[in-house]
C-alpha cells in the first residue's frame, strides 16, 4: 500500500460536518494544526473548512488539564449521602463500587468501576500520549494510536453512568424520616469531568497522528 495520497498534499479538503470533498482551498499547506487555509465555507453545508481542527493541541491540552483538575475532587469528595434512622453514610465513587461488590453484584461493580475509574483514567493517559507523540511528529505505532483515539471517542460518554445512578436514587429514596439520598458535590465535579473529557477528545484532530515527518508506509 504505497503512496496513499493525502488530502493535504493534493490540495483537497474534506468538510468535517458533511464530508464533502472540496478543492483549491487557498492558503499554504502547513500542517501545524492551527487551521491554516481557513475562512472558506463548505459550499454544501456552510461550515468553515479547516485542514486540521483549529488550535487542536492547545485546546485539547487545556480541556484535558481542566478535566484532570476536576477529576480530583470528583473522586475525593463524596458523590452521594445515604441517610437512614440509625446512620449517615457518605459515598465516594470508589466506596460505591466496593459496596456494590459486597452487595453481591460483582458484575455490576466491575461495570461501574470500568465506567467511572478505568474509562476516565484511560482517557487522560490516552489523550496525553496522543498529544505528546503527535506534537513530536512521532511515527511510532501510528495505526495503534489511531485505534486508541477511536476507542476513547467510542467509550467516553459511558462515564456518565454514576451520575445517572445518583440522580435516580436521589429521586427514588425519599421516605423522609426513615431514609433519604442526597447528592453531594463530588457528583457535580464528576459530571463536569465527563463533559470536559468528551470535549477534549473532540477537539483532538486524529489526522495530526499522521502528520509527522516520517513516512509511514
Amino acid at each position, binding site marked *: 500500500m504505497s503512496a496513499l495520497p493525502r488530502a493535504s498534499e493534493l490540495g483537497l479538503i474534506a468538510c468535517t460536518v458533511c464530508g464533502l470533498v472540496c478543492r*483549491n482551498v487557498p492558503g499554504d499547506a502547513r500542517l501545524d494544526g492551527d487551521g491554516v487555509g481557513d475562512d472558506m465555507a463548505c459550499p454544501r453545508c456552510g461550515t468553515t473548512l479547516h485542514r486540521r481542527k483549529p488550535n487542536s493541541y492547545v485546546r485539547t491540552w487545556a480541556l484535558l488539564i481542566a478535566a484532570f483538575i476536576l477529576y480530583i475532587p470528583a473522586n475525593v469528595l463524596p458523590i452521594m449521602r445515604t441517610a437512614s434512622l440509625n446512620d449517615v453514610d457518605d459515598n465516594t465513587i470508589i466506596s460505591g463500587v466496593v459496596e456494590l461488590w459486597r452487595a453481591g453484584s460483582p458484575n455490576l461493580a466491575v461495570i461501574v468501576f470500568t465506567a467511572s475509574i478505568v474509562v476516565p483514567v484511560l482517557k487522560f493517559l490516552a489523550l496525553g500520549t496522543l498529544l505528546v507523540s503527535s506534537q513530536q511528529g512521532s511515527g511510532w505505532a501510528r495505526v495503534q494510536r489511531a485505534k486508541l483515539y477511536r476507542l476513547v471517542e467510542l467509550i467516553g460518554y459511558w462515564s*456518565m453512568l454514576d451520575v445517572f445512578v445518583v440522580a435516580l436514587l436521589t429521586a427514588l429514596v425519599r421516605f423522609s424520616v*426513615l431514609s433519604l439520598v442526597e447528592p453531594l458535590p463530588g457528583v457535580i465535579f464528576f459530571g463536569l469531568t465527563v463533559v470536559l473529557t468528551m470535549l477534549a477528545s473532540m477537539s483532538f484532530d486524529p489526522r495530526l497522528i499522521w502528520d509527522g515527518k516520517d513516512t509511514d508506509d
Partner: protein
Amino acid sequence: MGMSSPEALLICEHCDTVYRRRTLTRGDVARCARCEAELERHHALSVNAMLALILTAMIVFVQANMWPIVTLGLSGQQSSTTLWGMILAMWREQAQVVSVLVAATLFFFPLLKMLLLGWLLWFARAGRRAPGFVRLMVILHYLGPWTMSEVFVLGALVAIVKAHTYFDVTPDPGIYAYAALTLLITIFAGVDLRRLWDDVPEGAA
C-alpha cells in the same frame, strides 16, 4: 473555488487519506488502508425503514418519559420516579449542574435528534429536501455524542441493585421502554446520516 464531484472522492476523516469511492454491496464496509478507520458502509436501511424506526423510537421515548422507571417500597410506603422526577430532584438538591446534564443528555438532545431526523426523513421519502435541510443536518452532526439514553439503562440497573439492599424494588414500565429505546438506538447507530446529503440532491427542495 472549484468542487471535485463529491461522489467520486472520499477522504478518511481520521488520517486525511484520499480514496476513489467504490460501490458497496450489501454488508460491505470500506476501511481506510492507512489507519483502518471505517470510511463508509453499505446503506442497509432504506429511507422508509429509517423513518419507521424513528417513529417507533418517538413513541417509545414518550412512554419512557411518562411512565415511572422504578418503584421502591419500604414498610408500606412507596416511591417511584420518572425521568423528570430525577431532573427536578437534582435541581432541588442543589445539584443544578447535574440536573441540566441529565435533562440535556436524556431528554432534550434525544428528543431534538428524533424530531430532526423524522422531519428530514419525512421529506427525503418523497426525494425532497426538508425546509431548513442544511442547518438541521449541521445541528444533527453536532448532537451526535451528547445523547446518552443507553448509558441511563445501565445506570438504572445499577441503581436498582443498590436500592435492593434496603428496599423492595419493582421495575416499572419506563425502564422497559428505555431498554427498547436502546435497542432502536443500536440499530440506528450503524447508519451514516451523511448519506442524506447525497440521497436528497440539492435543488429538490
